[in-house]
């Protein structure tokens, strides 16, 4: 099996003021990567016009583009419209589901979605007390359950989880610990560890760090643009020959 080159980025936060900028930086990406994964916060306010800018910047590339939304993309309550217009532009958008893209006969399965917060084992919120608290925790729990099922159903040679929120604390280092519960949840890691994956990609933590690992040993990479400081980073999943 050949090596797979995964380009990944998150938090591109595009708007009218950045039209054309990001596209310029990803020209020629097909020479460096086989697929581009975009981990949410595609826009600043989640408006339809910003969504159109994102669709223009990411469409028509020679390699498949797979994306999820982030919290900013929900801000104007047009998340579904943004998903639709990205899909119309040929981008695969994961909304708590999985998809398989084929690269020279190698099947790469990607599962995920926006994700959500709640915190990390030992210091996390629980489904107890006021309805608002319970709803917050339940939202993450339901997402994690859908991801577990999506991962299980993927028929692929390699599996990647694509998320906006973080599954671990490791990649939040640099963020104030007080806001960790709003940056991710251990339940996302638990879902991935239960079914297994080669890599977990996320964004959202602009002040965090790039590298971490789940309790079950899946490599985690925070590819928020302010963290990687490049248009994308490339991760190579080795084939049989390596």
């Amino acid at each position, binding site marked *: 099996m050949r090596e797979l080159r995964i380009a990944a980025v998150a938090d591109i936060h595009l708007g009218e*003021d950045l039209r054309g900028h990001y596209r310029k930086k990803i020209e020629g990406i097909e020479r460096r990567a086989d697929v581009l994964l975009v981990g949410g916060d595609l826009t600043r306010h989640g408006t339809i016009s910003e969504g159109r800018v994102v669709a223009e910047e990411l469409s028509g590339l020679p390699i498949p583009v797979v994306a999820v939304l982030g919290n900013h993309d929900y801000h104007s309550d047009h998340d579904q419209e943004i998903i639709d217009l990205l899909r119309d532009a040929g981008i695969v958008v994961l909304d708590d589901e999985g998809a398989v893209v084929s690269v020279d006969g190698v099947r790469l399965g990607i599962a995920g979605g926006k994700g959500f917060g709640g915190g990390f084992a030992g210091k996390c919120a629980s489904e107890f007390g006021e309805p608002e608290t319970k709803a917050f925790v339940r939202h993450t729990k339901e997402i994690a359950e859908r991801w577990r099922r999506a991962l299980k159903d993927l028929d692929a040679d390699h599996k990647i989880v694509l998320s906006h929120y973080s599954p671990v604390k490791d990649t939040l280092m640099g963020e104030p610990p007080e806001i960790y519960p709003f940056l991710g949840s251990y339940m996302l890691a638990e879902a991935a560890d239960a079914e297994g994956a080669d890599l977990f990609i996320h964004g959202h933590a602009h*002040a965090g760090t790039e590298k971490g690992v789940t309790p079950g040993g899946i490599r985690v990479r925070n590819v928020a643009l302010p963290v990687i400081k*490049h248009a994308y980073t*490339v*991760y*190579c999943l*080795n084939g049989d020959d390596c």
Partner: protein
Amino acid sequence: METPHYVAARVQRALAEDERTTELGIRVDVRGEEVYLRGQVSCDERRRQIENVAREAAPGLRVHNETTLVEVREAGEEEHL
């Protein structure tokens, strides 16, 4: 004088909630009459807006815009997993 702690909280919320900025990652520190803004922004225009919104939320205080402009570079190195 207003407690610096609450000024910082108000500026931070304004930066997150104001439509001109919607920046969640800006660190705001208030020392006496000085307001310090730190964090990374993606273009000059956004940096200017951050300063405007902070000034409006902290009238009468001196705002120091210490945000850094991050110029996005083309693809970086590869990592083999």
